[in-house]
């Protein structure tokens, strides 16, 4: 590969750079938009918000989703919350602080202009979601409530109990269904995108497979937006839903889109550890639990006593000991690494010594069982259902697991990949989190991409690039169809005896 494509970074000081560049972006008249079709792949936070917004602006939008309903996209599982710098709290948060935290959290590997843009947009995301009816938690006085999240010293995470992703996704989904009802979005579910269609090097459509009939379909458009999520599921056991797949971005990469930072995967410190070989995934316990839960291990290696039998002075609250400023809220990568090292050194608890305690005892003593149960209700129930233990009596056992992928398809500042006309949104792109994402920043990024950034930058790109409509049987479409058909054919010819999961498990 020769040199990197131009990232199109804005000129001048980065503060307000997004506002300046947005105001300078060319526009398209609503009348012309009506004749332009956009293809959005994925209905998670990024895809649903982009599709709804583009349709509101007048485009014809066709949406493809692997799921049977847009509401099931993996974003629905996000628990803890969404960051926004609203400078309303007393702890001195601000846009520049969220910018600095994002950059520092990402080990200075993220694009500064992109981090700044996220921080600037963050507050408008909350307003948009509130207007849609997202029932964020509120203070007694009626204002929006916040909590603090790993990697941050201020309280800037907005939440809806432990189901923030669900509520934000339903907001975007409902906005999307409103456009479906208005006839501006054509929604095609149970479709797997298999191939990108390019004409003269420009992305102009996809080939997908109807997951019920098996039929291959061609969809063409003026531009393609991929919002197909991350690739943590390349690991057999991850916190991702089972349908989360990397196939669309992988295919785009095979067809020439650059992939950036594939090694930057986030290992989340607080997951329910694994037991049986047939266990299919690891369940995340939101790290918001680290606000109240203290993480510890027996101070001496090989201590097999029950947790209650280990006296206070023989417990090692290792995050509090090592990181007095952050304590249990140390950034995810740091918390995961320390937990793993101590387990490797023989301090781990549970089966195979592969877990650490997350203990709510002190929080319950301080604030009462009821308060803690109200704060984390569904998480505690979930833990009990899976493990059979009551976390208000016995410390929870947690262990790190693959959770999020900072890497993804390379995009420039306007979120376009190295294939012109192919935009990449949400976890599928590599933007803004550098080597490590802050807790509660993925939801922020997905919605920033979908509600605010892509609608402006896609329009700007289209205004400068006439893309005449192509027929479904144009040579480029037929070739892409043929590639997909022969790949599927080759798989059927394989003739092995192992089920697909057997390969996945071995990865």
């Amino acid at each position, binding site marked *: 590969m020769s040199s990197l494509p131009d990232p199109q970074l804005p000129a001048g000081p980065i503060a307000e750079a997004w506002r300046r560049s947005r105001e300078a972006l060319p526009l398209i008249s609503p009348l012309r938009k009506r004749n332009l079709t956009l293809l959005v792949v994925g209905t998670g936070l990024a895809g649903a918000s982009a599709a*709804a*917004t583009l349709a*509101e602006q007048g485009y014809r939008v066709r949406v493809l989703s692997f*799921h*049977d*309903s*847009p*509401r*099931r996209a*993996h974003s*629905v*599982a996000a628990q803890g919350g969404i960051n926004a710098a609203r400078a*309303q709290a007393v702890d001195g948060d601000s846009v520049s602080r969220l910018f600095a935290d994002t950059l520092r959290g990402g080990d200075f590997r993220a694009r500064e202009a992109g981090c700044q843009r996220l921080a600037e947009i963050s507050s408008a995301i*909350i*307003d*948009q979601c*509130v*207007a*849609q*009816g997202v*029932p*964020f*938690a*509120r*203070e*007694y006085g*009626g*204002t929006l409530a916040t909590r603090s999240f790993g990697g941050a010293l201020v309280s800037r995470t907005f939440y*809806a109990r432990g*189901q923030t992703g*669900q509520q934000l996704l339903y907001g975007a989904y*409902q*906005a999307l*269904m*409103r456009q*479906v*009802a208005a006839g501006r979005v054509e929604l095609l579910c149970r479709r797997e995108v298999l191939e990108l269609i390019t004409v003269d090097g420009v992305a102009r459509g996809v080939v997908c497979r109807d997951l*019920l009939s098996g039929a291959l379909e061609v969809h063409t458009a003026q531009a393609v937006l991929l919002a197909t999520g991350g690739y943590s599921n390349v690991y057999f056991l991850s916190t991702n*839903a*089972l*349908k989360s797949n990397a196939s669309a971005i992988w295919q785009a990469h095979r067809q020439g889109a650059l992939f950036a930072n594939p090694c930057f995967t986030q290992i989340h410190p607080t997951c329910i*550890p694994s037991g*049986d070989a*047939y*266990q*299919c*995934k690891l*369940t995340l316990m939101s790290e918001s639990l680290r606000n109240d839960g203290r993480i510890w291990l027996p101070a001496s290696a090989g201590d097999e006593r*029950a947790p209650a039998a280990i006296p206070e002075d023989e417990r090692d609250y290792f995050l509090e000991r090592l990181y007095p400023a952050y304590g249990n809220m140390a950034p995810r990568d740091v918390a995961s690494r320390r937990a793993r090292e101590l387990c490797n050194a023989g301090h781990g608890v549970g089966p195979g010594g592969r877990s650490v305690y997350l203990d709510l005892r002190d929080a319950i003593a301080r604030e009462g069982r009821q308060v803690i149960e109200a704060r984390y209700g569904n998480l505690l129930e*979930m833990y009990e*259902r*899976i*493990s*059979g233990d009551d976390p208000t009596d*016995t410390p929870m*056992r947690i262990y790190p697991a693959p959770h999020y992928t900072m890497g993804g398809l390379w995009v420039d500042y306007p979120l376009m990949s190295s294939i012109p006309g192919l935009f990449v949104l949400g976890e599928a792109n590599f933007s803004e989190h550098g080597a490590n994402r802050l807790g509660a920043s993925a939801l922020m990024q997905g919605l920033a991409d979908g509600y*605010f950034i892509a609608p402006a930058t896609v329009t700007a790109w289209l205004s400068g690039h006439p893309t005449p409509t192509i027929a479904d049987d144009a040579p480029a479409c037929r070739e892409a169809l043929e590639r997909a058909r022969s790949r599927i054919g080759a798989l059927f010819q394989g003739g092995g005896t192992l*089920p697909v*999961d*057997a390969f996945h498990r071995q990865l």
Partner: protein
Amino acid sequence: MTSLSGASGSLSLNLRIWRQDNPGEPGAYRSFRLERVGADLSLLEALDQLNEQLIATGERPVHFEHDCREGICGSCGFLVNGQAHGPRAATSVCQLYLRQFADGATLTLEPWRSRAFPPIQDLVVERSALDRLIAAGGYCSVNTGQAPDGNAMLIGQEQAASAFATATCIGCGACVASCRNASASLFVAAKLAHLGQLPQGQPERRRRARAMQQQMTAEGFGSCSSNLECEAVCPKQISADWISWMHREAR
């Protein structure tokens, strides 16, 4: 602290599963036996294991919907011994663990049955009727960029919590499947109550209530005769009181 270790042992199960190749052909129950599966596995993981065995013998695997496997996406759902999502209250079927069942138990698994949910294959049905109910009016009409300051409207903590409780519906369809009229009243009432309890939902409140209930009839869902089965099987425990609230709303 033994429960994750597999110390709760293993058990054998008889599975009677509804098999139906496609909507056009009649279905029938088929029996399978699973020997000594880990009691710490979920029922869906046991089905994964069964499917691997079926694939090895060249038989078509059992088709069931699932995704998150943590009770939040609403993909999973079938009847276990006649009960939607199985015997455990407030639990979707993906969160049902085998330690719940006795060694040697027989479990009958069959799909949701309702006119508005056409069968697809085995345990899978088409639930897009629920999406069309939302499209009929289950939203606040606000375009991106038009939103006022989120703190401009004060919403009391209790009010926000109550709206949230109704907004947690995961759209699994268990309420419909367990209603003898196949009514979607709890689903619709939950959405109306979510938006109707918040100031943002007020401008369209009446129109929304009327449109969603009309769509419910158009989709072939039945009406509510207050048997409250829906509330009993709802994995999110949404209260059926909201159905009577809804009936007042539409007037």
